């Protein structure tokens, strides 16, 4: 999965936030819709697409979607 594909998949987990609002440098934690449900969705999405487990701490440690994508690559 490329960074662009990850951003698209990331955006799909949000029901209220328009997809155009998601870019590689989007600070996801600042989105109104960011919360436990979306966070768990991203954990599941990462498992499904990369076969890798990320934690709540990982999600807190990253700021942008790209940060998270890069962190996943190191796992």
């Amino acid at each position, binding site marked *: 999965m490329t960074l662009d594909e990850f951003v698209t998949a990331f955006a799909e987990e949000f029901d209220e936030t328009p997809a155009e609002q998601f870019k590689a440098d989007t600070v996801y934690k600042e989105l109104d819709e960011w919360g*436990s*449900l979306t966070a*768990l*969705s991203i954990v*599941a*999405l990462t498992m*499904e697409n990369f076969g890798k487990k990320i934690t*709540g701490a990982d999600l807190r440690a990253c700021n942008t979607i790209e940060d998270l994508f890069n962190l996943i690559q190191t796992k």
Partner: protein
Amino acid sequence: MENPFSLEGKFILVTGASSGIGRGTAIACAQMGAKVVLSGRNETRLQETLASLAGEGHLVLCGDLNSEETRKEIVDKMPPLNGVVYCAGISQIQTAKFMDQLSLEGIFQTNVFSPLMLNSLLLKKKKIQKNASIIFISSISGVYRSQVGEGGYGATKAALAGFAKSLALELSAQGIRVNTIHPGVVETPLLEVSNGTLGEEELETLRQKYPLKRFGKPQDIAYCAVYLLSDASGWMTGSNILIDGGFTLK
């Protein structure tokens, strides 16, 4: 006067006795005079529990209760019981949208199917004596409340509460009582596992939501189990007991 809360002379089976609520329950039962049968998957940790038990005559039956063969072997070695506490359980977080059938089957196997089938076998082999007490450790999750991603876990815990009602009716003629305990968050290794997802900061936020300002300890639950196992609760059956430090008050 004889102590109505004593478990003197009673044989109590505790599943999941290698850690957490199960270990705490085994220790409390032994303190109250019971002979405890310890069930769990990890021999080393079961031996650690055994070493913490007061009194003598306790028994370790190690094995994975998810296996039908193991359940048979364990029940064959089982002494006649005056009480059973089904503590063995696992937790899981997955949202409804990302539900994975294998994981869902896994948690239902451990939390529901295995205790129900073990219970069935214990009854068939007449290992549960008249006037015995059976306890299922359920949760506040499922019957009382939930949180996102907890649907599968909550469903297993609610299933136990549903099953216990029917079992209480079926066994009432023999004076066997069946109750469920519904704990809030208890400091156990299970919590440390979810901590991987939650993080210490979120755990602290959650802890502060408990009016009594702490999570439960295994003994908070164990002492309720002791009461339900003792003759003091002789008229209680089919009850769901909530122990949650006040969490569901608000």
